């Protein structure tokens, strides 16, 4: 049995609006084991970023956690004091944000930014931290690392800045690295470099990774397990091979079918999911996907389905759909 590192149960997030609070994330359950890479997949507005931000209590104004627990190494992250929280942030849990240009301090040298968490969390002297920062830059594959410590963020290219962000996330050798679309702003050849780097570091440092993305192709080669989010709920949670081979939820199937395959037939019409996802905070009652679902029945509009193990599959493959079993028999 593998060891649980992070266990999120029934997490809900609300946004304050003029007409009262509206639910954005509605009771999410997810977990990460030690050494595991979890991919969180979903389209814009599905709550994937907010869920992870809420764990470190980094939610923007007017958005707050409405309920649930998030146990990390046996302690509820949502109940930590500010002081305890500071130990976790950047120490045990590293975070890499999407946009390196806005998350790096533009008037601080790279070396100083990397040194900061080391001095704070690891009680290093300024000189030791600077030296360690150079090693970190070398670890993420930045050429001329020692000179680069003296650079400012604007002097680096996008790929280099993202490497610096990853180095900062890794500085204190966290047990968990949360990466929020870290390659979305980068070109494919640079993306391939970053993905390789994270894979290698994961192996070398034995850390767990949560990788948030909308790109199913990217996550296919990276994750051990994938959670698919739709309108603030987990609709499917499965080991990566099972998710791609036997997707259980109609939304997952729709997503997979709408990706053009490099090896697929061409010029044919792609199968697409009709309609558009609900606006955050305007979730329909019952199953949130029902208005777009080809299989939806009355029961789907009435009752929200729970995340349950899929019939004829391992317990590790869970789906939130009233008709998940039927889907499988059709696929077989």
């Amino acid at each position, binding site marked *: 049995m593998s060891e649980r590192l992070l266990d999120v149960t029934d997490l809900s997030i609300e946004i304050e609006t003029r007409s009262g609070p509206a639910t954005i994330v509605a009771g999410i359950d997810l977990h990460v084991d030690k050494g595991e890479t979890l991919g969180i997949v979903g*389209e*814009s507005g599905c709550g994937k970023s907010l869920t992870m931000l809420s764990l470190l209590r980094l939610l923007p104004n007017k958005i707050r956690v409405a309920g649930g627990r998030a146990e990390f190494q046996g302690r509820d992250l949502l109940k930590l004091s500010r002081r305890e929280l500071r130990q976790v942030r950047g120490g045990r849990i590293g975070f890499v944000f999407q946009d390196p240009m806005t998350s790096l301090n533009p008037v601080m040298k790279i070396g100083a930014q990397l040194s900061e968490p080391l001095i704070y969390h690891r009680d290093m002297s300024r000189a030791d931290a600077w030296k360690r920062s150079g090693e970190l830059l070398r670890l993420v594959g930045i*050429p001329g690392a020692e000179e680069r410590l003296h650079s400012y963020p604007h002097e680096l*290219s996008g*790929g*280099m800045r993202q490497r610096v962000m990853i180095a900062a996330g890794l500085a204190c050798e966290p047990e968990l690295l949360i990466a929020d679309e870290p390659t979305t702003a980068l*070109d*494919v*050849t*640079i*993306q*391939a*470099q970053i*993905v*390789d780097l994270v894979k290698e570091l994961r192996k070398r440092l034995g850390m767990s990774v949560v990788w948030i993305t*909308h*790109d*199913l*192709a*990217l996550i*296919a*080669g990276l994750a051990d397990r994938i959670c698919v989010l739709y309108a603030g709920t987990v609709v499917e949670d499965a080991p*990566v*091979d099972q998710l*791609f081979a036997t997707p259980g939820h109609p939304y997952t199937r*729709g*997503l*997979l*079918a*709408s*990706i*053009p*395959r*490099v*090896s*697929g037939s*061409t*010029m044919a*019409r*792609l*199968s*697409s*999911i*009709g309609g*558009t*996802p609900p606006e955050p905070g305007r979730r329909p009652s019952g199953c949130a996907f029902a208005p777009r679902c080809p299989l939806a029945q009355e029961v789907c509009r009435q009752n929200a389905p729970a995340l349950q193990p899929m019939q004829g599959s391992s317990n590790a493959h869970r789906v939130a759909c009233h008709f998940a079993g039927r889907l499988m028999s059709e696929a077989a």
Partner: protein
Amino acid sequence: MGAQPLIRVEKLQKHFPIRLGAFGERAVTVHALDDATFDIAEGETLSLVGESGCGKSTTGFAILNLHRPTAGRVVYQGRDIATLDEKAMRPIRRDLQIVFQDPYSTLNPRMTVGDAVGEPILFHGLCKRSELPHRIERLLADVGLPPRFAQRYPHELSGGQRQRVAIARALACQPKFIVCDEAISALDVSIQAQIINLLLDLQEKYGLTYLFIAHDLAVVRHISTRVGVMYLGRLAELGTRDQLFGEPLHPYTKALMSAVPEADPVAERNRHRQILEGDVPSPLNPPPGCRFHTRCPIAMAECRTIVPEWRDRGEGHFVACHAVPA
């Protein structure tokens, strides 16, 4: 291709002079596009791919004379349109349209969908005012929007719906050629598929020719007749989709293809990726010789000094690389 090309691009070049430094004291030139030569055949989808800053959008803009080319020719219906002024361009613009990446910033927030779609029709005087509502309704139907959308404002629409409106606007004056500049890149996966299908349907219905500018190779493979690969302002390779994806010749094309992940975990695990080292150099000061030589795994001495010739290696498969035998 055989058939008469719709558009012929010859030695097209676009340089942007800019000023750098705190007081703009350093005048420099961005070499956004150099020496692009290719045809666009009627009814085809020609895609341009490459990484950000490689000049693919600049090529689209230069063809439409939205950026006046620094040198070279764009031949459309027997005329070089690259040197025409705005007034002379106006009647030609009816035929040549563009759809941009960001449907949030390309639609006027104070204009209803109907007004936005109707504007080019009125501008070019293509129908009577009394017929306009009917024309608008038909255009909206073409892009899969119900007639009531004519009264809506852009902020009331989702990203996919806005992109449909932008496409309807481009279709309004019955064009022959549409540049799709990253037209689907900003959309969510499930919506992306809807818009790709729409573009394919419209092409079939109206015999449209597309220049499709994109960085998502899976999408490009799905919809293209031919594909051109650009690197740092120059074309590296151009050929039919099967030539490009089946037997890429240029080392950059090979690296680009190998960097694209595929939605198949088993294939991904067993795949050998060719990872390029380093970053793309600055277009302010592109390397001499072949612009790819600083990252090329097989660069030779001549690559550092001599610009490789853009040549047909048989059956319309163009490559610019010293290492590819003639």
